[in-house]
């Protein structure tokens, strides 16, 4: 823009150009990130015939949108069971995780144990031991406990990754609680346990909530363990059920597949999205300090 303008206008102009350039740079990323979700969503509410019309533009409806795919899920598959299973699994995993990670995190943050720092790092490292290495030894644990083909197998197994992560997360939270208020509680006659329950936990509830959220979302993100340990149809959690039960041989029920996947995927994605910064600082916080 070579024309001479007032400084205010030039400034506004510059701002506009800057924004345009940024949005231009971002748009391919946005399309890449959002299009698959849009495509899944529109597939979920299209009529079957509409999915296979290749001569028209497929990005909108040619036939009226329909809810029959959702209907199908709830009336002709075990989808209802899968949702209940997923919720129960996540609930028990969260309960186990909190009961373990709160005392562990507190001990590592507060008790001045020898090697506490290294122990904390060690516990965190077990989060890095991937499921693909653990699932075979865990298969034997599951079968020894006689839990194969029941969703309880997953309740036993998921804490192997939720506990390390949440212990690390809670350790960080407990470290930020000033030691003085704890001391004050002890002077007033609380024991160490009383101080934890009555003083430290109430002020670090955001940490506990975050830990619960992550136990839930990390449990719902899993695929490998459920695939390896649960084969009975009505015992499956949602991601596994959708991926394995809605495909019969070579026939894909695309509409109901997408419907079933998104119905659980979207809420998880939203909650995870809100807590993403906590997740990132959970795993990198150590480096920023």
């Amino acid at each position: 823009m070579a024309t001479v303008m007032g400084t205010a206008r030039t400034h506004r102009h510059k701002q506009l150009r800057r924004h345009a350039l940024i949005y231009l740079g971002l748009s391919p990323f946005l399309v890449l990130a959002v299009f698959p979700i849009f495509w899944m969503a529109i597939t979920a509410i299209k009529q079957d015939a509409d999915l296979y019309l290749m001569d028209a533009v497929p990005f909108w409806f040619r036939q009226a949108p329909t809810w029959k795919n959702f209907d199908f899920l709830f009336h002709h598959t075990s989808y209802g069971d899968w949702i209940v299973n997923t919720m129960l699994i996540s609930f028990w995993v969260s309960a186990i995780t909190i009961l373990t990670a709160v005392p562990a995190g507190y001990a590592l943050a507060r008790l001045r144990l020898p090697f506490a720092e290294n122990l904390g790092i060690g516990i965190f490292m077990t989060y890095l031991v991937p499921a693909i290495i653990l699932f075979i030894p865990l298969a034997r644990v599951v079968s020894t406990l006689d839990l194969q083909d029941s969703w309880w197998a997953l309740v036993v197994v998921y804490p192997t990754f939720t506990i390390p992560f949440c212990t690390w997360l809670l350790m960080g939270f407990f470290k930020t609680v000033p030691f003085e208020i704890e001391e004050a509680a002890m002077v007033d006659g609380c024991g160490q346990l009383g101080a934890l329950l009555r003083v430290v936990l109430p002020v670090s509830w955001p940490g506990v909530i975050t830990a619960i959220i992550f136990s839930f979302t990390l449990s719902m993100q899993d695929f490998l363990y459920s695939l390896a340990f649960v084969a009975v149809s009505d015992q499956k959690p949602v991601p596994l059920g959708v991926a394995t039960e809605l495909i019969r041989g070579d026939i894909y029920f695309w509409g109901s597949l997408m419907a079933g996947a998104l119905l659980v995927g979207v809420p998880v994605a939203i909650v995870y999205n809100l807590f993403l910064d906590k997740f990132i600082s959970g795993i990198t916080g150590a480096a920023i300090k």
Partner: protein
Amino acid sequence: MTQAAPGGPPPPGSISVAIGGRVRETSWWRTPTARRYLFGYTLLASVGSPVARFVGIENFKSALENAVFYTAVRNTLVFTIGAGILKGVLGTTLAFLLLQPFKGRKVVRALLVIPFTLPIAVSVLGWKWMFDSQFSVINWALSRLSLIGGYGSPDWPVWLGQPALALFSVMFVNVWRGFPFSAIVLLAGLTSVPPEVLDAAKVDGASFLQRFRKVIVPMIAPILFIGSAFDTVFTLSDLSIVYLLTNGGPDGATEILPTLAYNTGIRGGALGRGAAISLFLFPLLLPAIVLLLRTLRRRQY
């Protein structure tokens, strides 16, 4: 695997033959802790039976004798390194874009991290539909843009059916899922650099590249290490993308160590051999873990 009676004849070539056919078995082998150290042992019994015998390196040997194993190692390396580079490039570009102040940044950020926050099995199913051999929306778009012919023409890509394309496709889905993570981690690092430091470098006459290399990179190195270590671990051990999209096919073109381990260990019932295969991931994971450990420990000083 067949059920072997305890004390039955060991397979030829196993360690127990070398020590005179005596079967060594102690209850310690059966504890879960021991199993972590002794991955490579065989369970000559079906899943769930407590009968297990020590066979030394037998399982590792049989893994190495399988030609598919080498394909899987090669594919795992190509998959991890290729996807890692792509995620690095896309993530860096995106992080610098998101570093700029602009209107609607929060909304844009929330939309951009969707791939990472969606449960992996869910999004992979979406991609499977987009890679459909006949009704792929990608092919529809390419064909409308006249980049390829119609369905049935020789240049119609069958994303999951052609070996090279299939490997590319599974890699692409991994990149799609991982690039927001790289960007957000990098962004967290970049925002932790105090602007005064950058200003000081600017005043001293450092160019953008110099500032990037000499100031930003050293300051955010720890966070970059941790981010890439995590990403490497997630990628190396990720089975769901390949399992759901191609299950290793066509003809082993996308077989990676995790799918091979799963198919051998759980589906084939050869737990010991499966464990041996998945343990071959360990040398690949080791650099990431060492890097992470060093970064974490350094912060103490």
